[in-house]
């Protein structure tokens, strides 16, 4: 499969603030991108825009495969995983309840669920309410949905930050397997990922671009 994601001259705003201006990026199967830059520069905003949570103020985000361009709704609802700062776990539900819900909601099959639990060594956590988990454990549980529902594009927001060294190794292996299967990873990071990635460094648009954005 030859999936590619293209950012064509996009500009993103948060409120009326212009965060990203005229960004071009082409990502293909097997690519890993590290988004770097100061806090507040728009890494999370960019990931959420690629996820299709909102449309860019200018420019176009598109995806295509061998069969031609992919419908944006299909792209969002079938091909993307987004792991944000928050781990998307309800505190009063058990890990198992949450993972099984995710599996059903994302229309995954039972084998994947078992595989994910095994791969990430989650069985000791399954009957715990998620509010009892540590930050690192929660992140591991979040990683599970990458394996539960198989989707080629992973958008990861600081995926490694709460993990300890051992868990980082597991996560890195997981990501590298995904890349060698032809997947795509775009990750916002402060520390570089422990494998080869393309680095895209984001900076603030200069003030004249800001002025232009103000008037349209």
């Amino acid at each position, binding site marked *: 499969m030859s999936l590619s994601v293209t950012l064509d001259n996009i500009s993103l705003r948060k409120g009326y603030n212009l965060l990203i201006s005229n960004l071009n990026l082409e990502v293909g199967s097997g690519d890993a991108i590290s988004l770097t830059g100061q806090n507040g520069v728009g890494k999370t905003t960019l990931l959420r825009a690629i996820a299709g949570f909102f449309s860019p103020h200018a420019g176009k985000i598109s995806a295509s495969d061998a069969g031609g361009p992919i419908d944006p709704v299909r792209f969002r609802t079938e091909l993307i995983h987004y792991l944000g*700062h928050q781990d998307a776990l*309800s505190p*009063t539900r058990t890990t198992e309840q949450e993972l099984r819900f*995710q599996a059903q909601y994302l229309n995954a099959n039972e084998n994947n669920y078992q595989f994910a639990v095994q791969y990430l060594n989650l069985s000791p956590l399954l009957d715990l309410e998620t509010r009892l988990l540590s930050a690192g454990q929660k992140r591991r549980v979040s990683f599970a949905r990458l394996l539960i529902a198989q989707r080629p594009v992973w958008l990861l927001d600081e995926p490694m930050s709460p993990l300890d060294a051992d868990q980082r190794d597991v996560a890195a292996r997981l990501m590298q397997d995904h890349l060698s299967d032809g997947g795509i990873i775009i990750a916002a990071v402060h520390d570089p990922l422990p494998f080869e990635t393309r680095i895209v460094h984001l900076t603030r648009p200069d003030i004249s671009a800001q002025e232009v954005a103000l008037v349209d």
Partner: protein
Amino acid sequence: MSTKINAGPHAALSLLKRDLSLSLTRGGGPLLAVGFYLTLMAMIPLSLGSDSGTLSRVAPGLTWLCLALASLLSLERLFERDYEDGLFDILRLGPLPMEVIALLKCLAQWLGTGLMLAVLTPFVMIILGAPVDAAFISLIAAILGSLSFAIIGGIGASLSLGTRKGGVLIALLVLPFYVPPVIFGAGLMQAYLTGAPVVQALSLLTAYALFALALGPIAMGAALKSALN
């Protein structure tokens, strides 16, 4: 292909189940709203006096007022928790459009609390002095009314998402929109008790519930999308 066709209803069912179980357990579940409803009921004779003539005259109207107020109570939790936990990030990557997600959440919340309040309504009315034979019609009316309250309330909850003013702001936004169902519901009971025909009030109440079902998801979908970008 067959899995794709099933994906929507399958996901909808799993979301409904999840939210229903959460609305029944989270934060005391329906207990809060039910307790509030009964407390308000107890306050009525304490503020108006226990004269049964007065009470039975105002019972239908005040019961509807209490029902509206009690319906407000669970709205703050409707989207806020999942918003804070980041769950919408998963929900939006699934097969359901935001409008359907919002509607399912409202329905789950209504099944968990609104319906309980509706079931209590005939008892509250009777305790306040309405005749027992009004129980059935008041139950039907309360079911329709609480459904309108839940969905119109969901609009308020989605608009005020993440404002940290929560409950008070929702109440301010939503209560003016509760005016029609309160009028139709209380009017329905009054018509029944005075022996007038109830068809008109009942159909107006039904119409408003359908109107809420049509308008609610569109408004909530738009509000949630703007809150979650």
